[in-house]
């Protein structure tokens, strides 16, 4: 049985597998980038169109510019921490943990913001609605950040746990560090672009 299996599973070299995985992740980043483009397009399109003067109707509160940057901070810290660990194997377990914690804390902050939005109003029947196009766009951007925090935390947790396993192929794991690096860098860039967009109120 075991002998038979040996004959049927094909093993490509870890180099080939690693390269493949990195390309795949980069292609998914392209897709996510197109999503980000759509979101930022929406932000500036509705902002400049300002239909019915209701981008940010009079008297509606907005988030401060700084809060948008704070919301992205977790993504940026995680990105930097991972890059440090990627190039310096000695501190890798520590930086992986830092990235995970940064993502969890940042994710919590983003969630907290979403739970306390200043622009949710109530209609005549007492039902909540988002007052204006700024509010609508803000919650979409925050949702995208949240998505990145969650996926990022999953990857970071995996890297932390895998850091303690010894039976893994070291070459492939090295490639996976680089692959994860593409993703962490991307979510940091995406966080910065989102924070930039939300700075334009």
């Amino acid at each position, binding site marked *: *049985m075991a002998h*038979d*299996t*040996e*004959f*049927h*599973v*094909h*093993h*490509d070299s870890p180099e080939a597998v690693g*390269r*493949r*995985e990195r*390309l*795949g992740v980069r*292609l*998914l980043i*392209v*897709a*996510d*980038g*197109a*999503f980000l*483009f*759509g979101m930022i*397009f*929406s932000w500036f*399109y*509705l902002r400049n*169109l*300002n*239909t*019915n*003067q*209701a*981008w*940010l*109707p009079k008297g509606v509160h907005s988030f401060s510019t700084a809060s948008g940057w704070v919301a992205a901070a977790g993504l940026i810290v995680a990105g930097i921490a991972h890059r440090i660990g990627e190039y310096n194997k000695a501190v890798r377990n520590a930086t992986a943990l830092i990235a995970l914690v940064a993502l969890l804390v940042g994710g919590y902050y983003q969630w907290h913001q979403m739970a306390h939005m200043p622009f949710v109003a109530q209609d005549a*029947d007492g*039902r*909540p*609605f*988002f*007052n*204006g*196009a*700024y*509010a*609508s*766009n803000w*919650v*979409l951007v925050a*949702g995208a950040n949240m998505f990145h925090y969650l996926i990022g935390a*999953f990857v970071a947790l*995996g890297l932390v*746990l*895998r850091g*303690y*396993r010894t039976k*893994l192929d070291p070459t492939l794991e090295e490639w996976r560090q680089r692959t994860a690096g593409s993703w962490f860098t991307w979510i940091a860039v995406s966080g910065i672009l989102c924070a930039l967009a939300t700075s334009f109120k």
Partner: protein
Amino acid sequence: MTTLSHAPASSRPVPNPQKSLITKLNMGTGMVLGIIFCWGTYYGMKAGRDMTDSHNVNKVLLMSMFAWSVGFLIGIGAFIGPFRWLIGKDLTDEEQLYLAGDGQGISRYFKYCTDHKVVGIQYLVGVMALLGVGGTMAMMIRTNLATPGSHFVTPVVYNSLVGLHGITMIIAMIIVATGPFGNYIMPIMIGAADMAFPRLNALSWWVLFTAVPVLCSAWFLGGIPTGWTAYAPLSDQAGPGMNAFVATIIIFAFSTAIAGMNITTTVVAMRAKGMKWNRVPIFVIGATISVALAIPAFPTFMVAMIQTAMDRTIATSFYDANLGGSGWLYANLFWIMGHPEVYVILIPGVAALMEIAPVFVRKPLFSYNAAIAGFAGIAGLSILVWAHHMYMAGWMPSLNGPFMVTTEFISVPTGLLFLVLIGTMWRGRPWMKLPMLSVYAFIWDFLIGGITGIYLSDVPADNYLHGSMYVTAHFHYTLMGAALTGAIGGLAYWFPKMTGRMLNERGGYISFWFVQIGFNVLFLGMFIAGATGQPRRVADYAHLFAHANLISTMGAYSVGLGMIILLWAIIHSWRSGKIAPMNPWGAKTLEWTVPYPVPLVNFDTPPVVTSDPYGYGRSAK
């Protein structure tokens, strides 16, 4: 890569990864968990919510639909791989072999099977089912339009038919060539053992599978009033059926992103030794350009659908003009996806026909480079033309001129596709088999579809034609006349490799003529109705348009009959057709060098490629 043992698959013991959860999961466990998740979410969220508020209804329905999808995927074992990666206990060889379906016979088609050949067959059956459903709706639409004042269906049902026919067919057409052939044939064509990411390959299919019941649920939730374009703010106003549409698109967008990334990576990174870029079969090039174009194009539709979902559930105002929204935002996001999408559909069909033509004319593909330039040019330009769907939207009239320029320039790379096909035919003696017939049908249909596109891309003419039946006829000529014809040609061509049997020729010929003649009657009639001034998507029309519509309906029935005959031919041949030899067409691509059934890792020894696969013909001198 190690080689396959020579013992036939049936005599090898079924791999038995001891006590692994993956051996216990299949489509049945997926359905059970999906339904539990769906019902749990539905009743859990409904409790304590004011269900007279449409926002709450939408919230509950949408979340239930997503819960179904996630539940199904958990139940079939889609997340075992990622979870095992997370905890650092990667799948063992035995488990991977089990997942590949080795020695599991027919049951592997109902499991989370990673073998690209299984996924290809799953896609083929799925596409046929979607085309069947979409085609039935088309027949109902044409029956209602046979005479003015018809009451075959009510306007509510009619509008839903138009929208659901549209989206069902669009989904079917996006996967019609890259699904079955891109998964089953393409890895063999490039000499690979499997796709780059076998588990993601299974995921793309099963994610798509979960979208189907969601789409069908639209009927039980009151249908959709918006057509497949789902323009806002009509979609904000629409009833609960709209949620099914929104959820379907979001789920489908995940599936296409995963599939697109997987196919692209496979082609870039897993080609056989010696298969340089100028030796890659043209179908592989076309399919790759198509899915690579989908990767950046489709997410904007997802943004638009998420915004629609947010407007409908948590009362945001992306598309509500009172609160700063705009329908133009939707139209832009939709068409930034929508126009590349047309070419995502078209290119693999054309590429399949380019693969076919040299084999049957016994001549090299004429100007391989022109073919690539044609595909690449179309793909490149297609992201710069989206607003030609919005000439009459009034969103920015000053951009009509520039968009007209980019749009009309697409006719240059499109012309190259024609050149490649007629250049291949030139002075040749074509072997008139079913696949080759499709090449001729394509040239006729796509010529009409292409030329009518030039009027539509011209702003002053579009002033009159926009939103009329003329547009409907035009895009059916391109999507059905060109892309579906290409896919049917591909099916006839690769059927022997995918099923081990020849497609019944007589059935195929009869079906071909019923479909093609009917198709041309149908849509030439629709061109007349459109030129006369009949708007599209109307449940009823003035007596002025009666003749043209009756002609169209007769053509439609002929197409329907032809498709039923084709379905019969496929089922009949699959069960008891003539056994196919290994290379029935005498073709030179790699998929014809492997036997049927294709071994699990495709090749006993990895192939080495020394030339392109178009070395047909003798020297002219």
